[in-house]
Structures are given as C-alpha cells and as structure tokens.
C-alpha cells in the first residue's frame, strides 16, 4: 500500500525545496507520494518541471496563503 510523506520546506529558497524532495524520493518506494510544502514561488514552477523531466508523476499542486503544496508520486 502506498504511503505519503510530508516535507516542510517552507522558508527555503530555490533549489532547496527541490533538493529536499529528491532526497526524500531516495528513501521511499515506487508508488509512494511525497508532499512538499514550499513558500518559494520559483520552486512551485521548478518542481513540476523537474518531475516531468525525470519521469515521476505530479499528483497535484495547490496554493494557500503563500504556501504551495506539491504532491509527487515516485514512478521509478
């Protein structure tokens, strides 16, 4: 059964949230999801771009009060 892990990267500037996501993906199983919380607007654009490039899956992205929630599923 897939699991979801949350990474709180609020306050970190680009590329901090992306690097935290990648480190997190190394620790989970294929099919598991990671939710990254980020206050960095650039990362809200960059993380989906990275996910597309390296062929993971973007589950969803939402924004509330200046904080983005980006959910990524490990696909490989």
């Amino acid at each position, binding site marked *: 059964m897939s699991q979801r892990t949350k990474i709180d990267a609020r306050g970190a500037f680009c590329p901090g949230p992306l690097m935290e996501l*990648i480190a997190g993906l190394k620790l989970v199983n294929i099919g598991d999801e990671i939710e990254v919380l980020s206050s960095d607007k650039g990362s809200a654009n960059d993380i989906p771009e990275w996910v597309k490039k390296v062929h993971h899956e973007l589950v969803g992205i939402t924004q509330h009060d200046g904080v983005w929630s980006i959910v990524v599923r490990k696909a490989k």
Partner: protein
Amino acid sequence: MAAVPLYILLCSGEHEKIHMAAMMASVGAVSERPVEVFVSMNAIMAFARQKPDTNRYRGGAFSDLMKQKNVSDSITLFRQGRELGDLKIWACSMALDVTGWDEDRLESDLFDGALGLTKFLSDAEGGQFITL
C-alpha cells in the same frame, strides 16, 4: 537521448557567482545530466577547509541579502548535488600550485581530485561550457 554534459569553469571568488555555480551544478546533476565543475583562481579560496562561514564568501549587495535571508550555503548545495546526482568537482592543479595548498587544505569529501586545465577542456569537448 542522453543529456549533454555540463562543464562549469568557476574562477570568481564572488559569493554570487559561486552560488550560481552551485545552483547550476546541483540542479543539473539531479536532472539526470552529468556535470563537472573546475574550481580555479580566486574561487579556490572559498573552498578552504573549515573556513569560518563569516568570511568564506565575499560579494556585493546580493551576497548580503543571501546571508540575511539564510539562503542555503553554496558548499552545502555542491554536496547535495554530489550526493543526489552525477556531479564531479575538480580543483585546478595550477591554483593549488600557486597557493601552495595540497588537496587536504580543501573542504573534505567535496572534490574528486586535482586536475589540469588541459584535461578539463579535453573532457568538455562536446559538452556545454559555462564560465563564472
């Protein structure tokens, strides 16, 4: 299609340029793109082992802003690139000769070794080359 390797020649000792090199190197490396960094000239000074953070980086107004806002440390970013991606970092052998440093004077577990410019340029043929 395999990604074109990225070669970064880092010469400047300015904080802003060192950090830009760290950002490009780490993001490139974790994006399935081989990256090699060649550290020479003034840049080598910022990589001295156990140098206090307060005087490791010298720069202008943007450097001050990065320090005030606790932007991640440039060397930490290089380390993340190495841990998470395909990133190699070389110390210029000429810079080591001029400073009189051996590799033990550089940040530990960060460099792949010392390298001459001729070898780096030869390796970089066919890749994308950026100088900072």
